[in-house]
C-alpha cells in the first residue's frame, strides 16, 4: 500500500492504518537561504516538493483590530523604529536585522481599553484574508496530492498582540469575565472569516491552529484556568470546523502537558510541536493520550544541530518505534530547523525517520 500525502495524513489524524508515518517540517528563513547558497536547493524551490512532505499549509487571517489604521512612527533611532499599530500596540522593530518586534506598550490594559479601542472594530472583512493566495496554495497542494491545511491563530494567540501577555494573564485572574469576552469575540470572528473564505473557495483538508500556551516547564495558566477561560473559544471554533468533518491540528510551543486533557475535550485531533527543551516528552504523551490523540513533532532539534548522525539515530530510535504504534505520528522536529543544522543532517533525519516509521512488513 502506498498512500498519497493527503490520504496518509487524513488517516494519521484518525489513527487509521497507513504505509508510513507522516513527514512535515518548519524551517528558519536563514536555513533555506543557507542551503540554497550551498547548492542543495534551487532558487525558489518549494521545500515541500524538495523533501516530499505530506502537508502544505496556507491561509492565515489578518486579525489586526483596525484595518484602516496607518502605523504611526512614535520614535526613531539609528537602530530601531517605534510604531503604534492597528491593535493599539507600541512595537519596536530593528532596522538592521529581521526579527519579531518587541511589544513595548498597549492601549488595552483592561476591559475599558478593550471596549474602547478593539471590540468596535473587530469585524469580518474581506481584507482580512488573501483569497487568491489561499486558492493557489490549495490548488498546489491538491496537484501534489498533499494534505492541505489552512493555518492561523486561535484565541490565545489573538489576544496578546492587543494587550500583551502580562495584562492578559493578570486579566485572567482579576477580571476573567473580560478575558472570556475577548475569547468569545475572537472565536466568533474566526468562524465568520472561515465562513467567508471557505464558503467561497472551498474547505481545506485540515485546520491548523497556532496557540503558544506554555513556556519552559509550565503552561502560562493552570489547567483549571484553561478550561474556564480559553477552552470555550477552542471548543467553539473546533466544533464549527468539525461540523464540516475537517480535523484540527493544534500547535503549541512550551510545556503544555497539563493542558492536554482540556485540549482533547475541546476536540483537537493532533498536538504539534511537543517542544522537548521546554519539558515535553513525546513518548510519555503517547502513552498517556496516544489512543485519543495524534502527534506531530517531539524530535529534539538540539540533537539535529549537533550534526552527529549517531545522536540523530538514537533520538529517532528512542521515539519512533513507540509512537508509530497507533498510526498517529507525523515526523517533525520539536520546533523548527535552524541554520546550524546541515542539509545532510536533515536529509539523514528524514531518511532514517521514515525508514523506522515504515509499516511495510508489519
Amino acid at each position, binding site marked *: 500500500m502506498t498512500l498519497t500525502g493527503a490520504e496518509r495524513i487524513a488517516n494519521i489524524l484518525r489513527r487509521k492504518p497507513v504505509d508510513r508515518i507522516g513527514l512535515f517540517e518548519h524551517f*528558519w528563513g536563514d536555513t533555506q537561504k543557507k542551503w540554497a547558497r550551498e547548492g542543495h536547493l534551487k532558487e525558489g524551490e518549494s521545500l515541500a516538493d524538495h523533501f516530499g512532505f505530506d502537508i502544505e499549509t496556507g491561509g492565515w487571517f489578518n486579525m489586526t483590530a483596525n484595518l484602516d489604521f496607518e502605523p504611526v512612527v512614535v520614535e526613531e533611532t539609528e537602530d530601531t523604529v517605534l510604531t503604534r499599530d492597528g491593535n493599539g500596540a507600541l512595537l519596536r522593530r*530593528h532596522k538592521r*536585522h529581521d*526579527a*519579531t*518586534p*518587541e511589544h513595548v506598550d498597549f492601549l488595552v490594559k483592561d476591559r475599558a481599553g478593550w471596549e474602547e479601542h478593539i471590540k468596535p472594530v473587530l469585524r469580518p472583512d474581506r481584507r482580512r484574508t488573501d483569497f487568491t493566495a489561499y486558492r493557489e496554495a490549495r490548488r498546489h497542494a491538491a496537484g501534489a496530492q498533499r494534505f492541505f491545511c489552512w493555518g492561523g491563530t486561535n484565541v490565545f494567540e489573538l489576544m496578546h498582540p492587543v494587550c500583551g*501577555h*502580562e495584562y492578559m*494573564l*493578570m486579566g*485572567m*485572574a*482579576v*477580571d476573567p469575565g473580560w478575558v472570556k469576552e475577548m475569547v468569545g469575540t475572537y472565536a466568533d470572528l474566526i468562524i465568520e472569516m472561515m465562513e467567508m473564505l471557505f464558503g467561497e473557495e472551498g474547505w481545506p483538508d485540515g485546520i491548523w491552529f497556532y496557540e503558544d500556551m506554555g*513556556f*519552559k*516547564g*509550565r*503552561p*502560562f*495558566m*493552570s489547567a483549571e*484556568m484553561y478550561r474556564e477561560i480559553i477552552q470555550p473559544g477552542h471548543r467553539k471554533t473546533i466544533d464549527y470546523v468539525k461540523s464540516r468533518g475537517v480535523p484540527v491540528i493544534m500547535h503549541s510551543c*512550551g510545556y503544555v502537558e497539563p493542558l492536554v486533557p482540556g485540549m482533547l475535550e475541546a476536540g483537537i485531533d493532533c498536538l504539534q510541536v511537543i*517542544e522537548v*527543551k*521546554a519539558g515535553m516528552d513525546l513518548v510519555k504523551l503517547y502513552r498517556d493520550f496516544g489512543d485519543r490523540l495524534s502527534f506531530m513533532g517531539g524530535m529534539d*532539534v*538540539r540533537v539535529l*544541530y549537533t550534526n552527529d548522525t549517531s545522536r540523530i539515530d538514537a533520538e529517532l530510535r528512542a521515539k519512533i518505534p513507540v509512537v508509530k504504534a497507533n498510526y498517529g505520528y507525523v515526523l517533525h522536529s520539536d520546533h523548527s530547523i*535552524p*541554520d*546550524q543544522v546541515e542539509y545532510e543532517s536533515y536529509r539523514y533525519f528524514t531518511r532514517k525517520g521514515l525508514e523506522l516509521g515504515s509499516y511495510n512488513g508489519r
Partner: protein
Amino acid sequence: MSEELLQQLAVCVERGKVNQASPYPPDMKGQDGADELTRKALDQGVSPNDVLEKALIIGMGNIGKKFSANQVFVPDVLMAAKAMTAAMGHLKPFLDSGQVKTRGTFVIGTVQGDLHDIGKNLVCMVMEGGGWKVVDLGVDVSPEKFLAAVQANPGAAVGLSALLTTTMVNMEKTVKLIKGEVPGTKVVVGGAPLTQEFATKIGADAYSPDPQGALDYLNINVAA
C-alpha cells in the same frame, strides 16, 4: 500587633491582593490590600526594613517557591508582583535615602538578537520581591551594554535570558566579556533552550530553570 500586621501584609503579597478596591482574589474582596497595610504598618511605627524583610520578601518568597513547585501559575505571580509594587511605592523614599538597604543590584536582560521578555520579566519581579535592586536592560541587549551596566553598578550580579537557540551564542559572548572585564561578577543564566551543561560550558556561575532558583543562588552567593 505589628507582627500580625506584617503577617497579613505577607499574605496580601502572596495572594496578589493589591488594595482594598481590587476584586482579586475573590475571597479577599473588600479587605485592605498590600497598599493600605504597608501604609498602616509605617504609620504605626514599624520600621521600613521590617516591612520589607518580614512581610514583602516573605510574601514574594512564598509565591516564588509555589511557582517553582508548579502549585501556582504566571497570573498568580503577576498579581503578587503587582501587590509588591503597590507596597514598594510606600518604601521608595526610604530606599532612596538609604534607610532601607537592598540585598544587592541585579542587572538583567535578554541577550542580543532575542526579543522575548516574559521569562525575564518574571525573574525581575521575583528578584525585586526578594529585596534586590533590579536594573532591567530590556531585550536584545548587546554584550557591551551589559558590560556598561555592570561597570555603572559596581558589585552587581548579572542575569542573562535567552529563548532562541540561535541567540545562545550571544549569551556566551556576553559572559566572556563581563568575566574578562569585571572578574568576579556573578552571572546567572536561564531560558528555554538552556541547560546546566551549557551554562558551565560558557563560564556562567549558575543556571536556573525558574526565577526562585536565581534568587536563592544570589541570596546565598552574592547578597550583602
